[in-house]
């Protein structure tokens, strides 16, 4: 087979210098290769350590495993709050693989209901931790879960992680006491970083969840894992610092779930506060705020609208009004006045003041609630029928400083020490307050102010929990305990339970006669033609005192309740304990805007509470640590 011959010879090629040009080409390529080889030298030898570290950080990742938050139970170990399995949406910045963050977020927005501002804020807080998953949405619904799974290939860096979700098993039961949790804010983180909090943590925001966070939160676990470029965990790597998460303490509260439920049932129609306490040790058996809210909305997706709605409610369900709001004690304060009068020997059992229906201080007239007057009344009757004039007279003899001193002895004007956040001290016109008031108003405290103070109106305000002190102090013969919500902490891993002991809040060392007189009078209020005879239950021997916290100004005070807008109606109080000779239960009832007359009828719910609790009683021993186990 002939090979085609071309007109070509070597001489011509040499002549045109093809060879030289080829050498030139080779030199150019060889030099380029040398240049690139130098670059390899620079990367592999000069900077090897740097890139080796990067390769390690690429491949190994410290994963934080959230701990199971401790459960919260009632006094008998019945679960009030625990955890459920739930899926959270997380994002690892490093795994975006070059796709812009905004694009991924927008894709997510089209798939699920995402709070993009929250997500952006959280991602901003990530900072240098680009390998760490950041939670951008919690508690996906099953629908959302399925949607994300189906579109996962379009969502680089996005992952689903199985995490515990806080579950309030009985919805709104004791909501203000138990509280709720939420994502830690950057401000909280600033102050709590030292205590090991982390930017992706959940933290207690209200109630026991907030105050007991250190006990409940447990300890986060850490493990080192090998991941691939898509963030998928391939295997766990050994690391000396790796450790599993430790669950939080289980907290036994002092709450009695049945009593709490029962009272909440009674209060559904009313706005107000009821607190039930064991006067023998300070344990809070029930703490009811009405209306309440369901803390689960804070841990469910799409709760924002509900939270908005709740915060617009004029009764402000999110506040724990039992400790955060203070009101004038009204006639309940007469118990404090009587104690002060008897203890300072200003009055005796037999001394009496004459009530003509009006008390004159100079030319100014102060009225008793009964315009015709009560005639001459003793201390017993003054409490029983709640005579104002008696206490106007007593107040003038005692003076504002003595009254304030006894108010403080009853625990007013300072924190009760209950383990709940945002407690308010209330207000007592003690010397320091008077000084501050003089500076603020530019004039002195007048004797007329003392007159109002004598019946618990004017410049005194106490929280419902402080009001309960009136009952517990008298019931305990002058000795009262710090109100307490926790009975014990059970550590994880079968540790020794930490039992919380009762501590004495104050002992007034009252004279036995004082206690006898006041107890008798308070018994008569309920059982002997007093102001609260509706509450009487034969055999239970309830002792109590009613009160009215004035809301409207003096000019409107004579308008009947049904003609007054609800927000201007008076608050109705009832403080009580029973049985009078061996008190087992102390109770404070506050009906917000209950009105002057209607309230008396509504206070009958106290009777039902006593019947329910004392009728069932004697299963509750003063030291409950044994009973609860």
């Amino acid at each position, binding site marked *: 087979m002939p090979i085609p011959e071309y007109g070509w010879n070597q001489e011509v090629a040499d002549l045109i210098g093809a*060879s030289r040009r080829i050498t030139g080409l080779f030199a150019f390529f060889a030099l380029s290769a040398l240049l690139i080889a130098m670059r390899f030298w620079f990367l592999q030898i000069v900077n090897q350590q740097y890139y080796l570290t990067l390769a390690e950080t690429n491949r190994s990742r410290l994963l934080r495993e959230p701990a199971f938050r401790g459960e919260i139970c009632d006094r008998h170990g019945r679960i009030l709050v625990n955890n459920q399995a739930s899926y959270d949406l997380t994002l690892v910045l490093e795994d975006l693989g070059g796709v812009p963050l905004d694009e991924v977020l927008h894709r997510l927005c089209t798939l699920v209901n995402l709070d993009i501002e929250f997500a952006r804020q959280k991602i901003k807080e990530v900072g240098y931790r680009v390998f760490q998953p950041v939670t951008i949405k919690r508690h996906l619904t099953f629908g959302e879960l399925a949607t994300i799974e189906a579109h996962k290939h379009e969502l680089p860096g996005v992952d689903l992680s199985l995490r515990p979700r806080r579950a309030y098993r009985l919805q709104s039961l004791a909501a203000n006491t138990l509280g709720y949790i939420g994502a830690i804010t950057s401000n909280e983180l600033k102050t709590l970083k030292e205590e090991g909090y982390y930017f992706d943590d959940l933290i207690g925001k209200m109630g026991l969840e907030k105050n007991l966070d250190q006990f409940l939160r447990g300890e986060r676990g850490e493990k080192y894992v090998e991941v691939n470029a898509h963030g998928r965990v391939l295997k766990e790597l050994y690391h000396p610092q790796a450790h599993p998460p430790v669950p939080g303490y289980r907290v036994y509260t002092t709450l009695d779930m049945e009593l709490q439920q029962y009272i909440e049932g009674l209060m559904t129609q009313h706005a107000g506060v009821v607190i039930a306490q064991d006067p023998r040790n300070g344990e809070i058996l029930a703490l009811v705020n009405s209306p309440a809210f369901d803390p689960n909305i804070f841990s469910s997706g799409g709760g924002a609208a509900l939270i908005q709605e709740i915060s617009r409610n004029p009764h402000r369900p999110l506040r724990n009004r039992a400790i955060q709001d203070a009101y004038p004690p009204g006639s309940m304060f007469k118990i404090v006045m009587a104690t002060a009068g008897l203890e300072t020997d200003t009055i005796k059992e037999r001394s009496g003041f004459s009530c003509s229906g009006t008390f004159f201080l100079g030319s100014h007239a102060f009225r008793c609630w009964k315009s015709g007057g009560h005639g001459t009344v003793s201390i017993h009757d003054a409490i029983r029928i709640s005579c104002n004039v008696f206490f106007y007279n007593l107040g003038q003899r005692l003076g504002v400083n003595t009254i304030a001193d006894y108010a403080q002895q009853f625990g007013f004007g300072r924190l009760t020490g209950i383990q709940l956040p945002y407690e308010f001290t209330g207000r007592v016109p003690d010397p320091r307050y008077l000084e501050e008031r003089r500076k603020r108003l530019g004039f002195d405290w007048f004797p007329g102010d003392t007159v109002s103070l004598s019946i618990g109106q004017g410049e005194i305000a106490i929280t419902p929990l402080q009001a309960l002190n009136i009952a517990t102090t008298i019931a305990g013969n002058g000795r009262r305990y710090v109100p307490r919500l926790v009975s014990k902490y059970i550590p994880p891993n079968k540790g020794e339970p930490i039992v919380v002991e009762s501590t004495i809040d104050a002992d007034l060392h009252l004279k036995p006669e004082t206690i006898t007189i006041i107890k008798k009078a308070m018994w008569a209020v309920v059982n002997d033609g007093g102001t609260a005879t509706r509450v009487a239950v034969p055999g239970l021997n309830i002792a109590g005192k009613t009160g009215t916290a004035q809301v409207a100004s003096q000019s409107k005070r004579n308008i009947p309740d049904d003609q007054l807008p609800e927000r201007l109606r008076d608050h109705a109080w009832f403080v009580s304990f029973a049985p009078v000779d061996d008190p087992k239960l102390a109770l404070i009832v506050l009906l917000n805007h209950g009105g002057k007359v209607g309230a008396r009828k509504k206070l009958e719910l106290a009777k039902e509470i006593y019947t329910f609790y004392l009728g069932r009683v004697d299963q509750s021993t003063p030291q409950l640590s044994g009973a609860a186990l």
Partner: protein
Amino acid sequence: MSRLERQAVWNLDWILLTTTVLIAIIGIMSIYSATYLTSHRHFVERQSLYIIIGIMIAAGIVIVDYRRILPYQSLLFWFSIGLLLYLEIKGGVGGKVDRYLKIWILPTITPSEFLKFALILRVAHHFRGRQLADVKVRDFLSPIAGFFVGLGLILKQPDLGTALLLVPVFIAQIFIAGYDYKKILGIIILGSLVGFFTAQSVLKPYQYERLVGFTRQGENSQETGWQLRQSKVAIGSGGFWGRGYLNGTQAKLEFLPAKHTDFILAVFAEEWGFIGIFGLFSLYIVWLWRGLKIARMASGASGLLAVTGVCTLFALQFIINAGMIVGLLPITGITLPFMSYGGSSILTNMICLGVVLSVGVCRT
């Protein structure tokens, strides 16, 4: 044994062939390391098959003699153009660049790979039997026309990397053909200036991003920046001795993009270190040296131009590929000759090898 066959065995450049096989084996090993975790032996088996078929084709070319094949270059050229047109009309398989074509049950093919080779042969064939002393522009109007048709179709894909590769190969061939190098220099400078000022308006945003983006290597928000960073981490962590075969983590855990194709050299550098890179570079330099040696001894202008074209193509692909994974050049879809995974790429590479060997066998 006929005279031709004896001559072929005697004249065959065994060093070139051995070098090629060594590079291909290194490629297969690296592909295995990069993919065995996710795809087991799939890619390795396919690549081995392509290499064996490719070597058989190369042997066929040596036996048949390249001078009998050259006249059919226009068939290959128009075939490639046809494929590119078909790709343009029908649309390709995935990616921002319409580079891959899937027809019937055939494996995915890359028409631009064939076109590169066809254009080299077209220029070589055009100058067959010619004296190259004083080449004028009108002497090679026909290959210039073919060149621009192909260039246009590849730019349309838009495969900027391959298009930019075609230009220097073409220029190198004209340079070797004896065209005045001062004029060539002038054209290069003029072209670069035009390109520099029109790039932003002519190029698609992502292409412009790639061209300028590689200078902003610190940022990981952009796709290419991220790829480059992972590639540098892979190379740098290899150090002098490498992390050991199958011990690299960057490729295995899929941090490296296109690990078995465009970034195969990074996989190799991670596991074999600088010492491995030195060895591999030496193999490529040897290949180039042997290739250009054959060019010098070519028995005709067509052989000379075919071999210099192939050598320039491989050298540039090597330089651009290596340059891009270390961050010296922008990231483009240029494969590493004989190493990167890919049927079209390996087959074209082997056909080129066949032509070079054949020119060597038929030397004067």
